[in-house]
């Protein structure tokens, strides 16, 4: 069995793709290129930092008129709506304005519309998803898909090649792997330590604020402030996008067992 392990800077972090199978080096390069191409695609659609991304186009225009979106953005926004419903509003990706105010996201997008950050006061409740794959904001607001887009990119890269070979995709700690049974991962915690944890599903994600001077990118939708809890939350699920979403939910205090069962999620809190 031949294998190839690559790492490229993508999604604002380090994205690893490992592929293995009875293939030549050239074939493994092609398979890994296919996986990376899916990550790049999602980055081009969903990056808040890229003023030319589809997300930026939505952020700039959806409060003026309904904006038609691509299938991948539509799928992710539909999931955001579903999670908003089951968490009774705790899961809310209309938090970019709060992150800009906190200095965690850049200001450039605001300059395009000549609006100040406090003019973007809407929440997910003001987002309307139309039947024709359109998005409309009833109030100006800014979406940041952050970690959940990372998880989605990992899933897309994984499913692009997993029928052809063994594959593992890890983007900044959002990970999905073919051979997870019996495997363990190292989970970063505070104080520069790692803790070894057995994989419980194919996908895992972890959220914490220790690499950002204790500031989290997770915003409490009630007070619109980034939370400052020091714990590390790890979630296991069949898909990375779900694992990532539930790390945010658990950090915000949503520990509904029925929801965890519905999405087949297992959660772990570390120091």
């Amino acid at each position, binding site marked *: 069995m031949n294998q*190839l*392990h*690559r*790492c*490229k*800077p993508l999604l*604002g*972090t*380090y994205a*690893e793709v490992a592929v293995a199978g009875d293939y030549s*080096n*050239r074939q493994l*390069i092609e398979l890994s290129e296919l996986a990376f191409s899916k990550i790049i695609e999602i980055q081009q659609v969903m990056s808040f930092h890229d003023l030319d991304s589809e997300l930026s186009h939505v952020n700039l225009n959806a409060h003026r008129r309904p904006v038609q979106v691509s299938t991948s953005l539509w799928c992710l926004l539909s999931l955001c709506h579903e999670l908003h419903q089951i968490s009774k509003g705790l899961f809310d990706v209309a938090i970019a304005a709060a992150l800009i105010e906190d200095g965690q996201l850049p200001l450039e997008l605001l300059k395009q519309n000549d609006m100040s950050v406090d003019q973007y006061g809407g929440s997910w409740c003001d987002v309307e998803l139309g039947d024709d794959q359109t998005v409309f904001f009833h109030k100006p607001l800014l979406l940041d898909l952050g*970690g959940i887009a*990372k998880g989605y990119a990992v899933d897309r890269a994984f499913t692009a090649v997993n029928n052809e070979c063994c594959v*593992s995709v*890890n983007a*900044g*700690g*959002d*990970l999905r*792997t073919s051979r997870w049974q019996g*495997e*363990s*991962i*190292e*989970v*970063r*915690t505070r104080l*520069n330590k*790692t803790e*070894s944890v057995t994989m419980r599903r194919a996908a*895992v*994600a*972890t*959220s*914490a*604020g*220790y*690499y*950002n001077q204790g500031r989290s990118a997770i915003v409490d939708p009630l007070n619109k402030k980034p939370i400052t809890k020091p714990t*590390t939350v*790890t979630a296991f699920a069949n898909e990375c996008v779900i694992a990532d979403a539930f790390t945010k939910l658990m950090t915000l205090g949503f520990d509904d067992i029925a929801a965890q069962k519905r999405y087949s999620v297992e959660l772990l809190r570390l120091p």
Partner: protein
Amino acid sequence: MQHTQSKRRFLKSAAYSTLAAIGVPLAPAWAKVYLSAEQAKQILFPDTELEPVAISLTKEQSKAIKKASKVRVRQADLQVWRTPDNHWFILDQVIGKHENIDMAFALSSEGKVLGMEILTYRESYGHEIRWPKWRAQFHGRDKSEHLKLEKQIKNISGATLSCRHVTDGVNRWVHTWDLVLKSHQV
């Protein structure tokens, strides 16, 4: 088998000793090797003849690159190869607060980034780990200590590390092309 393991330990230790000798400021807590330079060449410039070009930056050139890119030049001796079409294959090291990364870059004959690959990623815990203590632990001990180090380089999940220093590296190389490499094209 025992001899092979001892040899592997020695080579790893020698590699890290070399890093210390050339003044790498961070003691790696763990490292992950992805690609060799040869594999990176095959990915970035498949089936292409690469000619090594000996370039050592003068102090003035280093200053000019730093001024243009706002990123310090750490090594005067460049590891660069030129293709017949005047594209460039570059090996470099990027050093950040938490990490120390060996990278390969590909630049076009017009100084545009064609691609990049990470060869080795070393993560550091900075000043909290003292070099001699780490070396003692590594030389350590028995097989179980060695296996623990091996385990540490498996998959890691955690808060997102920004790749800002890689971005800085790209920026430095784009200006290095403009100020130095361009004049070495045929």
